[in-house]
């Protein structure tokens, strides 16, 4: 289950919902917005959105578990997205993940105890020339080897 932290519909999300309420395909847009607000889809927010949009909660979970993009757990402050698309996979993307797991002492889709880092395996992010590649807070680190990782993590930690 998820964190018991209380979440409320933010003003930005509320006005986004109003803008999209009557439009077809609104659910997925609203869920995108919700994830950008909270970093994931808190259950309380999913329930609240279901009520506001008159959509069964089961349907919302059908959508957010179908698409890899949506997260049900709160990610770390810095979410490390490691590409495991075809090129990165062949160039050792999995080795990068395994090394990160050792360095951070946590597995994929879980968060370090201090809440700073989480590791996520993502599909092709569109820069195969830089394979293997990872993304942290939108910043790309490419042509990686395992030895690059301790410094990258130390730099992020110091930010």
């Amino acid at each position: 289950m998820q964190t018991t932290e209380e979440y409320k519909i933010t003003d930005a999300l509320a006005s986004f919902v109003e803008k999209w309420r009557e439009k077809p395909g609104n659910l997925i847009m609203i869920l995108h917005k919700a994830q950008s607000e909270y970093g994931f889809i808190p259950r309380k927010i999913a329930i609240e959105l279901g009520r506001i949009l008159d959509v069964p909660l089961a349907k919302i979970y059908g959508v957010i578990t179908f698409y890899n993009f949506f997260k049900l757990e709160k990610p770390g402050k810095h979410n490390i997205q490691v590409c495991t698309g075809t090129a990165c996979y062949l160039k050792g993307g999995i080795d990068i993940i395994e090394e990160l797991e050792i360095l951070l002492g946590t597995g994929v889709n879980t968060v370090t105890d201090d809440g700073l880092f989480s590791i996520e395996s993502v599909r092709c992010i569109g820069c195969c020339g830089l394979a293997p590649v990872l993304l942290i807070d939108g910043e790309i680190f490419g042509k990686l080897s395992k030895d690059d990782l301790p410094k990258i993590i130390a730099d992020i930690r110091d930010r």
Partner: protein
Amino acid sequence: MKTIGIKINGKPVQVEKGTTILKAALIDDIKIPTLCAHDDLDAWAACGICVCKIEGSSKMVRACATEVMEGQNYITHDPEIMDVRRTVLEMIISNHPMECLTCGRNTTCELQDLAADFGIRDVPYHADVKELERDESTPSIILDPRKCINCGRCTIVCQQLQNVWALEFLERGHETRMAPAGGILLNESPCIKCGQCSAHCPVGAIYEKDETREFLNAVRNKSKHVSVQIAPAVRVALGESFGMEPGSIVTGKIYAALRKLGADSVFDTNFGADLTILEEGSELVDRIKNCGLLPQITSCCPAWTDYMEKYAADMIPHFSSAKSPMMMQGVMTKTYYAEKIDVAPKNIYTVAIMPCTAKKYEITRDDNMWASGEQDMDLVLTTREFARLIKSSGIDFDSLEDEKADSPIGDYSGAGTIFGVTGGVMEAAVRTAYKLVTDKELEDVNVYNVRGMDGVKKGSVDFDGTEIKVAVAHGMVHVEELINEVREAKEKGEDPPFHFIEVMACRGGCIAGGGQPYGTTDEIREKRIAGIYSDDEKSVVRKSHENPEIIQVYKDFLEKPMSHKSHELLHTTYQKRPQYAK
């Protein structure tokens, strides 16, 4: 309806436009194998077993979801098609645990049947069974997602027929599973325990909680007087489990079987139904005469009351406070009957044979279910469990001599028996309410405008010059229309659109409940319904208030409908509940 000419395996046939290949083939007596298609549901082509060919096309199509077209020749089977079907079957089986002997669907499983028909002896693919936990959180049904073949029937039933949305397809591809929204248990979801998912599941992924051993333990305990009641709908369906036609009335054999199984007294829920009519009918008359809140809404269906508490709590004041026939029968057994036979209520063990999985939940739904001072109903067995109990005892059901129910709470009227079909509670109530309002007897007791399979039925009954407006809904998806009509009238300050509304959660009513024998379709519903009405027609007494045992029980014990004692024992309350407990 326009008909078109097609060919099935080269043989010309005429079919209605819009017919699927699956249905068209049936005209030529070819039953194309399927695992996901079901007559109650729109086809959505999940399993892939029903592939067929169209002559001249190299593509195979799914018979369940492909409409026939003028002039085409459909090939329903040839060596290549059968080979493809076999491969699909092998792939499904490679994801399915080989636990047939200990499975709740052993000998009633559609996958097992196909594996037998296809002569599957080994599976060439690596076995890959999902590691998912069994969900035993509800008192009614068990979810075993490891056995799920992703046919989707349960989810579509839950969403489209029942409008409950407890189940959804989560994840995707290989990870797809049927579950409540977001890692919670079924009992924490909006599930109303109607069991329609279990009645539609082709395999053992959803099944009723088996409590047959509880019954045997009670019989074994010599200090317990075991008292059993049977519901109206059981008598027209149980026979199917012993090879009889749907709709065969086997009431007398059921009484006999129960005594052979060790029941100390055998009663009929139909008596409880007659009692419910007296209480609920009097409540209705009271509301009509004294400007009470209308419409009154029936509350004998526990799946419906659960739904209403979660989805339409604003309707609580409209709910009849009368308990269901099963609960009334239970409390009368542990009070009135206990006094008669001079046995302490704590030494009576009450069992109900029900067509319903939600009834297992109802017996402990709130404190009012302990009105006798003990738990009024100790055990509920579904029709399917009861059939297994008879089979495992070795009793030859077919050759049992008819017996009668015990007195003084076992006799029933025709009105009591029709409680098992949609419209039946309404019709039974009308027969008695007419008398209560007009002080005259209704001459033609058949109330035809509340009968039949339309999801929503509206009509009116002439109460000697006063028009009483009634409405009936069955299949949970249809109830919203009626509730919204009531809400709209209320908002506009208009008169309520109806005096009385009957709701049953399952399509067709209890005769097609979630605990009935498998394979229920509209064709079978119609036959069971016909069985119930013939039971009514051949009854000498067809009105609840004319049932001599009912008259006696008020004289001896309850005084009159809605008396203080009635309220204590036979009435209950409802409260708003959250849809999600988590």
